[in-house]
């Protein structure tokens, strides 16, 4: 068996959750790697959309931003940004949206706006960007984040985008009909919302990870499903394709940086 990093495990686990007929709203970083890994392995017909307007894109290397020329060059078509948010995202055509952020709570609500008070922030973060509407317009949301006490908090400083709100039916009470976060994929585990409370519960631990490690890296009392599986390790093919993708990316972008 090949050795792999926790980040690789996270990316592979996210990729596996995608289906061949999914239409994904992709963000930069782990989601971009996961979506393109899925496209290059089990989901060749998957549609990848970046908020810059590129629809059905198939980049040979991972983009540096959501608006790289490579995304446009390889896209089926590129539309304006207003059209992207109106016809495509709000139009309800996206099956899976990826989100992540500086802070996450146990109901999948996310903060990417400020640490501290909004008017006198300790750290001014980038803000929501597409997230507030991605969170409510996509069929479902996958969240990818590395676990840490700083990021997995009991109470967000600011709710940038809605997950399951206060849990239970709170999402529907906001007039939202989409599923919201159905999967939280971290470097340690896979979490899914409890069907009733909507609180994230661990349903699968990555190889070699203990419940204690998981609990020690979240700011709330972590819950575990009745049956917790072990995430299958990355296959040789998954690792090879992912590493090739990263190597091509480094060669392409690294070259430009010298």
């Amino acid at each position, binding site marked *: 068996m090949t050795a792999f990093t926790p980040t690789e495990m996270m990316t592979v686990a996210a990729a596996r959750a995608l289906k061949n007929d999914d239409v994904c709203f992709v963000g930069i970083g782990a989601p971009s790697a996961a979506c393109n890994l899925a496209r290059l392995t089990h989901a060749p017909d998957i549609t990848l959309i970046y908020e810059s307007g590129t629809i059905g894109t198939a980049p040979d290397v991972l983009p540096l931003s959501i*608006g790289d*020329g490579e995304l*446009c060059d390889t896209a089926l078509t590129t539309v304006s940004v207003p059209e992207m948010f109106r016809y495509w995202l*709000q139009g309800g055509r996206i099956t899976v949206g990826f989100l992540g952020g500086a802070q996450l709570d146990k109901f999948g*609500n996310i903060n990417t706006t400020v640490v501290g008070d909004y*008017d006198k922030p300790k750290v001014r973060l980038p803000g*929501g960007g597409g*997230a507030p509407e991605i969170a409510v317009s996509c069929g479902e949301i996958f969240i990818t984040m590395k676990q840490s006490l700083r990021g997995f908090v009991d109470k967000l400083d600011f709710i940038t985008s809605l997950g399951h709100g206060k849990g239970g039916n709170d999402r529907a009470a*906001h007039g939202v009909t989409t599923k919201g976060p159905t999967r939280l994929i971290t470097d340690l585990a896979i979490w899914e919302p409890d069907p009733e409370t909507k609180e994230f519960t661990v349903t699968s631990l990555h190889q070699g990870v203990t419940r204690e490690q998981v609990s020690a890296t979240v700011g709330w009392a972590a819950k575990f499903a009745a049956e917790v599986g072990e995430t299958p390790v990355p296959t040789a093919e998954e690792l090879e394709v992912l590493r090739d993708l990263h190597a091509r990316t480094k060669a392409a972008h690294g070259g430009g940086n010298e």
Partner: protein
Amino acid sequence: MAKIQTLSEAVAENIKDGDTIAFEGFTHLIPHAAAHEVLRQGRKDLTVIRMTPDIIYDQMIGMGAVKKLVFSFAGNPGVGLLRRLRDAVENQWPRAIEIEEHSHAAMANAYEAGASGLPCAIFRGYRGAELTRVNPNIKFITCPFTGEELAAVPAHRPDVAVIHAQKATKKGDVLIEGITGVQKEAVLAAKRSVVTVEEIVEDFDDVHPNATVLPFWTVTSVVKVPGGAHPSYTQGYYARDNAAYLEWDKISADRETFLEWMREHVMNETPDVFATRVAPLKVQG
């Protein structure tokens, strides 16, 4: 009716202290050369609108030209946070700035409404999102047919839109290709517009019939500035200068380093420098 001008003339005629200006370009075609000229001409108290402030507004904010920022995502794309913007918001250096913060969907809809001559945009947005608490320019209306609540934001109607594009004709028609962002909407929403371009051509007769084109009578000023989007890119002309984005993270980390860099690379430069900056980044046209 478009005038073909120098960048110095275009900025002097169209951009005044206190104006509300949208510099647009979504990752692609960011009008850096025009922003530098605005700084050189010492404009101040500007209200600047932009979905993704990134380096272009980090520089303007750091130089103290900005009174108010209207935006939806303030990061250095693919790199990290914007340090001059943070310094202004967290420490009021070099001055305090007002913030009006939206989502991308709200900003895109607000430009679209501005281009459409409407006073506001409606969309299904902001549900459960806390920006509704801190931004009084987010309201809700009720659909008269279904009773559904929809978010509403005021249309963007800037005094000036500033964009960079691939080509203009001699008359001043402007062609934008590739990732077109919100630039067409920004120009149509604005009272005046300054457009920098890579080249000026005879006509667009060989262009696709449905390409994104702004007719000359919708544009105020057209300026040829090859490389004018650097360090962002112009599809068909040159690639993104990723090293510059990474370098910015270091330059902007320290106030003095920042000021020194701006003096050397912006305040004491001319628009001609942009052509030399993109020379090593050229792609097949």
